[in-house]
Structure formats: structure tokens, C-alpha cells
């Protein structure tokens, strides 16, 4: 953290924990008797409670979307580039809510939380939650916060899936759904990458069938590998090329198998760091939630039929070099919205950073996001 806060930062923020004592029924048939959701909010809720924006996080995200937790923080929240005073999601106008989803590992109830039935961490006994379950829990949080209708539900990647699911599950409770770098369902290739990640984790000897907490250990190698393979899919060939090329850490080849190329050491470093701070069971759960997401499934694969229920307006954005969720996946969503005669706007933004582009401000991305949210703000009188 710099000595002083940037003027366009929401500043130092403190997460809050909301306890829920009423059981929540999940798609898998199980229920959680009680659970916590950890939440951050930025900006002020206006008097007619019309200016609330929900930010949904992606696979490894959490509630800390913007600002700093203390003046000692090196980095701000994960979407600080887009949330703050004068930024696309302008906290001078909107009341912004971001939570750690159920099953997460940043304070909300998840596999590493204590199971009240046993007094030990849930581990593999934590139910597999779905995007719909998350949306349900987010709606319960909205009730708690006194928000009847979101001005917008916004998310990138897996967060965009939640924004889409909101439009189907609670059509009357949001005015706009913003899905960035997202997909209406995973492809076989997407699921395949997730499966490699899961295999890496579950085949780690330290995994202990998900009960590593009881053995006072972590499946570090497995989670590191999972993150490494995931990380590759977040970047583009070009952006990796630009960042690392074939650069070596030392001058010459060593004819061994240690990390000699910069890209190798970068991936190892990212993987190692991630494996210390992220819960492996949560990683399994999040990837499964991704795999299962398919709102068209119960409509014979026809997303436009699923969208018949939706009444909000949509903004869909994709990035030219995103090969994890390609522009074609976004267009699939857009075409279904067109066929269902929903109001939708779409743009494909030229950016070299692959899937990660949704986290990186580029002029056109910022312009579009700002223009759209400005209109949302005007519409709700914010």
C-alpha cells in the first residue's frame, strides 16, 4: 500500500460477517442448517434503496473486491480497477455489495469451516453448491440488507454466470445483468481443464480424501498444479509471450529439469503462493459449480427458452483473446437473448490478455463499462 490512498480508491474497508440461522436448501438435496457470509460494501445505499449493485466473484475470488484492509496492504481488492469513486462501478453513485460465496475459503461457510454436527471441519462433507445456490444465498443477503431490487448484478467469468442466473431465478429483483468474459455453459475442453485440476488435488498424498485439516497438512503440490494449469488458461499465448518469451533465468541451458525458463518459475511461484492461501476443497467445489452450470439444461439445451423468465436488461462483454470463455460463448448467450427478445447489448473488446482481460482496465473496456453503468445510475436516480 502506498503512503496515501489513491483518490479513486474506496479506501480502507472492513468486511462484515452475516450469520444466517435459517436452513438453506441446496440443489444437491442437502441443506445447510446455518451459515455465515462475509461481505464488503462500498458507497451508500440511497433512501429509496435503488442504487445497490451486487458484484459476484469468480473461481478464486472473494468479498474483497475494492479498497484496502489496512494501510499495510500491498495490493487493493481484486476488482479495484473497476470499483471506486469515478470508476465504472462508481461508488459515489452506487452502493456496492460483494460477498465471499458459500463454499468459499475467505470467511464464508465452506469446507474448511467447522461442521456443527461433528465439531471438525466439513472437508469433503461440505455439500457441492451450484451457481443457483449462490444466487439463492445472495438473495437472502439482499433481504438482510434491505435491498429489494439490485440496480445491477455484475460479474466476470464465473461471476457472470451468477449475473445470468440471477436474471432467471429472481427476474423481478434486478434491473440489469452484466456478464463479462463469461459463458452460458462450459465446453468439454473447459471441463477437461477442471478435471485435470481436480485430479492434481485429489491425487496429492497430503489430500487425505479431503480431510487434510485433521492431519494438520495441506495438499500443496496438488493445489499448486491445479493453479498452474488454471493460470495458463487465464492468459493468452500472446500475453505469455510478451511477458516471458523464451527468457531464461540464467544465461544458458542447464540440461536439467529445474525451472529454467522464466515462465516456469512464474507459474511455480504463482502456484506455490496460491496453495498456501486457498483451500483445496473450495477449489474442487468451485470448479464443480462451473461444470454444472447450464441454465439451458432443463429447457432441452435452449437457452432462449430459459430466458423467457428474465425481464432485466443485459450487458454482455467478451475479450478477443480469451480462449477460456471465447467471444463465441458470449455470443451464444447474446443470441439466446436476442431470440428471447430480451434487451441486450454486446461488445467484443480487443485486448491481448486472454481471460484475465476482465480484470485489466483498457480504454475501450473502461469506456463501455462506464457508459453502461452511468446509464444504470441515471435510471435508478443515483
Amino acid at each position, binding site marked *: 500500500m502506498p503512503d496515501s490512498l489513491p483518490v479513486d480508491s474506496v479506501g480502507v474497508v472492513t468486511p462484515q460477517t452475516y450469520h444466517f440461522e435459517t436452513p438453506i436448501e441446496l440443489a444437491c438435496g442437502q441443506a445447510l442448517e446455518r451459515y455465515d457470509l462475509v461481505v464488503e460494501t462500498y458507497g451508500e445505499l440511497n433512501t429509496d434503496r435503488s442504487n445497490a449493485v451486487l458484484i459476484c466473484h469468480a473461481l478464486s475470488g472473494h468479498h474483497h473486491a475494492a479498497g484496502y484492509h489496512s494501510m499495510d496492504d500491498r495490493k487493493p481488492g481484486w476488482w479495484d480497477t473497476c470499483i471506486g469513486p469515478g470508476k465504472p462501478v462508481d461508488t459515489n453513485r452506487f452502493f456496492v455489495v460483494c460477498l465471499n460465496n458459500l463454499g468459499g475459503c475467505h470467511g464464508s461457510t465452506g469446507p474448511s469451516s467447522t461442521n456443527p454436527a461433528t465439531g471438525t471441519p466439513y472437508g469433503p462433507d461440505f455439500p457441492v453448491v451450484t451457481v443457483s445456490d449462490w444466487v439463492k444465498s445472495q438473495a437472502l443477503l439482499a433481504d438482510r440488507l434491505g435491498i429489494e431490487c439490485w440496480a445491477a448484478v455484475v460479474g466476470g467469468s464465473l461471476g457472470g454466470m451468477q449475473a445470468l442466473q440471477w436474471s432467471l431465478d429472481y427476474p423481478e429483483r434486478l434491473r440489469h445483468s452484466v456478464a463479462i468474459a463469461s459463458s452460458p455453459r462450459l465446453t468439454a475442453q473447459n471441463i477437461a481443464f477442471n478435471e485435470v485440476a481436480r485430479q492434481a488435488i485429489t491425487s496429492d498424498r497430503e489430500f487425505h480424501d479431503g480431510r487434510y485439516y485433521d492431519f494438520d497438512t495441506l495438499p500443496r503440490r496438488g493445489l499448486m498444479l491445479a493453479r498452474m494449469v488454471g493460470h495458463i488458461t487465464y492468459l493468452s499465448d500472446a500475453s505469455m509471450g510478451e511477458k516471458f518469451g523464451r527468457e531464461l533465468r540464467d544465461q544458458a541451458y542447464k540440461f536439467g529439469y529445474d525451472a529454467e525458463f522464466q515462465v516456469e518459475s512464474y507459474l511455480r511461484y504463482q502456484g506455490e503462493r496460491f496453495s498456501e492461501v486457498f483451500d483445496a476443497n473450495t477449489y474442487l467445489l468451485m470448479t464443480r459449480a462451473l461444470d454444472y452450470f447450464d441454465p439451458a439444461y432443463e429447457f432441452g439445451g435452449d437457452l432462449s427458452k430459459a430466458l423467457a423468465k428474465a425481464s432485466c436488461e443485459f*450487458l454482455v462483454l467478451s475479450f478477443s483473446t480469451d480462449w477460456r470463455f471465447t467471444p463465441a460463448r458470449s455470443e451464444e448467450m447474446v443470441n439466446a437473448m436476442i431470440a428471447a427478445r430480451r434487451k441486450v*447489448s*454486446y461488445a467484443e473488446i480487443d485486448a491481448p490478455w486472454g481471460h484475465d482481460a476482465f480484470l485489466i482496465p483498457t480504454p475501450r473496456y473502461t469506456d*463501455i463499462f462506464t*457508459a453502461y453503468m452511468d446509464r444504470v445510475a441515471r435510471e435508478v436516480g443515483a
Partner: protein
Amino acid sequence: MRADLEIIQQWVKPGHHVLDLGCGDGTLLDFLKRERNASGFGLEINPDHITTCMNRGVSVIEQNLDTQGLDNFEDNSFDIVLMTQALQAVRRPDKVLDEMLRLGAEGIVTFPNFAHWRLRWGLALSGRMPESDSLPYKWYNTPNIRLCTFKDFEALCRQKGIRIKSRRVVDGQHQNNWLARLWPNLLGEIAIYRITRENT
């Protein structure tokens, strides 16, 4: 009010579902939404126009007619398909016309008349490619790659079995002009055609 908007508006019924090909900054769709409670989408490729549309609440899809076509739209999914001042900028205007009438019961097309007397005069006198208010480009950088005259367009419609329900001719400022009505292909700068399939 711009005369072309006024004319087009008359042909759009309340609640019509419209598609605007090359919708620009969304002026027309915004106008039809307010005046006719019309719904629908605009297609556009200019980034600044797309941003403006989004800011004014016009549903806009980034889609390039030349490279992406209109395959993603279903047959008869619109009441009216509009194309104002864009026909001359697509690679295959003939195919776009077919697509317009596949998607909509009716099409409205406007384009600049390359047989307007000033353009004819300019070419005849100077021997250089003409420029005008509605065609303000050099030959090498113009987006208008398929210029035609009113007569050309009408011949194409005849050949394709497209029926012209009405034609209105205006000047470069989209104003009505009685002379242009008298000798359209010579004195009209912009024509607004309302077209439909022959058998409807």
C-alpha cells in the same frame, strides 16, 4: 426533426420489433423507442457509436455484416429491418437485402444517390471522383464501396422480386424538396425506400 426520421417513423407501428443494421449512435432506435414504443436491436461496429448507444439505453450488438453476416437472427423475427446510410458500405448489398427480408416482413433502406446532379457535374467537369455532404470522403479512404443510383437500386429490386412499397426522396440535409420529387435520380440526394417481398 430530421425529415428521414419523421418519414421512417410513419412506417413503424407502435410496439414494432425492429432491427437497425448499422445503427450508428442509436439516434433512430432511440427515437423509435420514444415515439413508437418500438423494441429491438441495433448492429454496429464503430466503438464510439456502440458506447454512445449503451449510454443512451439503446440495445446494441457489435456485429460486422461483412464478416459475420446475420445468421444468428431467425427468419421473420422482426417487424421491420432498417438500414440507413449503410447499404453502400457493405460488401454485398444484394445479399444484405435478401437477409433483411428474411428477418423482417418489411425493410427500410436509405442511401445516397450517386446520380445526383452535383456528383454527375463534378465528375464531368473535374474528372475527379465526386465528394459531397453525404459522401465526404476521398476515393481511397471511403467506407462507401458500393455506390449506386436510385435507378440501380430499383433495377436490383426488380431483379430480386423485391417490391418497393414507397420511396421518398430528400436532400442532403434530409429535407423534403419538390424538385427532388420531380426528378429524383437527378435531383434527389438521399432516398428512403420501404421494401417487402414480392408475394406479400
